[in-house]
């Protein structure tokens, strides 16, 4: 699974420009699904199985997009000013590298600041693509880039610029392959534009109109020195979301996930996240409302160019979803 993860996390796919990730996912799953389509927003929607014996219509969602930057101005010396796409923080930018969807690579530099310990504002940062004039700059206004780092494999721990949320794309791909028999009609959605406001999941959920919605995404962890106060830690199993900044998970779905983990003998943690939200919020609010929840993969340094997850949590997330989706479901 690590090789699949590496391919996914190293692809360039900032919000709205997920084509390269979509092509990768499609090549991995096209042989194992009943139907595959791409909708108006670029979501890749894979259907597997038919409903039988009281089975449900279930939407699973992992987003393909990652945070990034977009060019707003090329100055006369070929430096690229930019705005952010999704939740990028200036402190993770300076000295970082980016890759544009058009293939151009560059680094983020900054103007001289008043004091050495001062963080640059976005207005003080620029991308240097090695050009020396506006005319020879290979980037134009509106071109978009993602952060550029190779994955590192630390054994149990994996580090990448796009664990959020390619790690969940990998989990959904492996889950799709692992499910041999299910009474449910399963829709695996590889969604777009999550980082700018759950836009892909909003339209996908409307189209699918599911009975149950589950997103798979990363969540924060509270296990680093003087970090956020949070129970979730790396290596303690998948986190079952109870709430986040945008959603109260349906308690029936939380109970279902807990019961599935316990029955399968898998470790799990309960997640209460203060800020942030996932595609599950968009599914929950679709049409007349959908019972929804989220399986989270604990992740350190989220929205930095080096996001870290625990490989065992990833594998157990696949096992949890496979167990949950293979048997009958009664929401009670």
């Amino acid at each position, binding site marked *: 699974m690590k090789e699949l993860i590496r391919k996914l996390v190293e692809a360039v796919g900032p*919000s*709205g*420009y997920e*084509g390269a990730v*979509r092509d990768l996912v499609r090549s991995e799953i096209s042989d194992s699904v009943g139907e595959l389509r*791409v*909708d*108006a*927003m*670029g*979501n890749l929607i894979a259907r597997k199985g038919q409903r039988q014996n009281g089975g449900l219509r279930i939407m699973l969602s992992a987003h393909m997009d990652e945070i990034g930057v*977009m*060019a*707003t*101005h090329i*100055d*006369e010396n070929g430096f690229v*000013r930019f*705005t952010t*796409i999704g939740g990028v923080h200036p402190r993770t930018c300076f000295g970082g590298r980016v890759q544009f969807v058009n293939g151009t690579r560059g680094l983020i530099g900054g103007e001289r600041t008043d004091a050495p310990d001062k963080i640059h504002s976005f*207005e003080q940062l620029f991308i240097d693509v090695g050009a020396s004039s506006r005319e020879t700059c290979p980037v*134009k*206004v*509106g071109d*978009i880039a993602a952060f550029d780092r190779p994955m590192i494999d630390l054994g149990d721990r994996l580090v990448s610029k796009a664990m959020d949320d390619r790690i969940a794309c990998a989990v959904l791909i492996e889950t799709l392959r692992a499910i041999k028999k299910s009474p449910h009609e399963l829709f695996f959605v590889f969604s777009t*534009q999550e980082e*700018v406001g759950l*836009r*892909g999941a*909003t*339209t*996908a959920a*409307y*189209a699918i109109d599911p009975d149950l919605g589950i997103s798979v995404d990363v969540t924060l962890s509270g296990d680093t020195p003087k970090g956020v106060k949070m129970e979730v830690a790396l290596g303690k199993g998948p986190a079952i979301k109870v709430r986040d900044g945008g959603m109260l998970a349906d308690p029936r779905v939380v109970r279902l996930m807990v019961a599935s983990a316990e029955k399968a003998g898998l470790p799990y943690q309960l997640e209460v996240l203060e800020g942030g939200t996932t595609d599950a919020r968009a599914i929950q609010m679709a049409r007349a409302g959908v019972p929804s929840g989220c399986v989270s993969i604990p992740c350190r340094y989220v929205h930095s160019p080096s996001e870290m997850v625990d490989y065992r949590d990833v594998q157990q997330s696949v096992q949890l979803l496979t167990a949950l989706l293979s048997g009958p479901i009664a929401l009670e």
Partner: protein
Amino acid sequence: MTDRTKLPIPLPQIGAEQLTLLERLSNAVAVSGDEGEVRAIVLEQVKPLADEVTVDALGNVLVTKHATAPNALRVMLAAHMDEVGFMLTRDDENGLYQFGLVGGMDERVLVGKPILVGKSHIPGVIGAKPIHLQERGEREQTIPVEQLRIDIGPGGSGKVKVGDRATFATRFQQIGPSLVGKALDDRLGVAMLLEILRNPIPQLELLLAFTVQEEIGLRGARVAGYAFDPQIAIAVDSTPARDLPNYDGTENQSYNTRLGAGPAIYVADSGTLSDPRLIRHLAQTGDALSIPYQFRQPGGGGTDAGAIHTRRAGVPSVSISVPGRYAHTPVLFARLDDWQNSLSLLHAALQRLTPDILAQER
């Protein structure tokens, strides 16, 4: 390069008739939630030309012009009828009223401005303490809107009431190559949609939405997008140009758009990542027909496209705007040639639009 004269339909030209209509539209008062005056003009203009006209529950005017062949591409165009303004919130008697802002406006521009209040356009002013009576420190502070009053004089009492809207009294005028008016955001767009209806494109099912409540959160477009359920949507709006030179002579790097550089095509704003297929289509149309255009600097702000593109199962969407200086103040300052080029680019892009554009993936 394609010759413009080879387009099947000649591009609509802005002349005296169009400018007279723009003047009427700009001078009409339609603060968000009370768009009746502009709606009346729109209805009068569209009824002789449209195949279907409805006014929906929120007050949007939804106009359909059928294609001449079945299974045509369903294309929605949206322009908002509403403008930013004020609402009276408390009667302080003797013609003085407290008021709140409707839509995004800079409190610093309000003081000392003539305005029109209520459906009868009762003239008034937003008062200010004369400079003679100000302390030195007062001049350095913005006066918060809570401390400002709308003054229509004691004779005006009884003609207006709490809840009435008000707007700047600016009258439309042409100054050389420039268009100046209080509500050109987005009456320029409204007038462009009317021109499209006068010069329809037979292979397209045209769905024109004259929307309400854009300035307070794209509320009209949200339901209009649901109702029309289009295959493609284009929001037609006005966007700020902040293209004046920097005071210190450095390169202006955050101009948003520039006057005279043609229609602004959106790549990204706070509400929408435009569909790349439609961005390409607009740019290629401009290149092929030598119609100038510019890319709006990606960043904040938003248009009706933000509400339309996530309706139902999703709608490929883009926005195109006429640049204008001093937006959301008593005057918007736009260029006639930018407006003409916006109309030309929109009309030409629609003529060149085929269902093939949706055959490729986003």
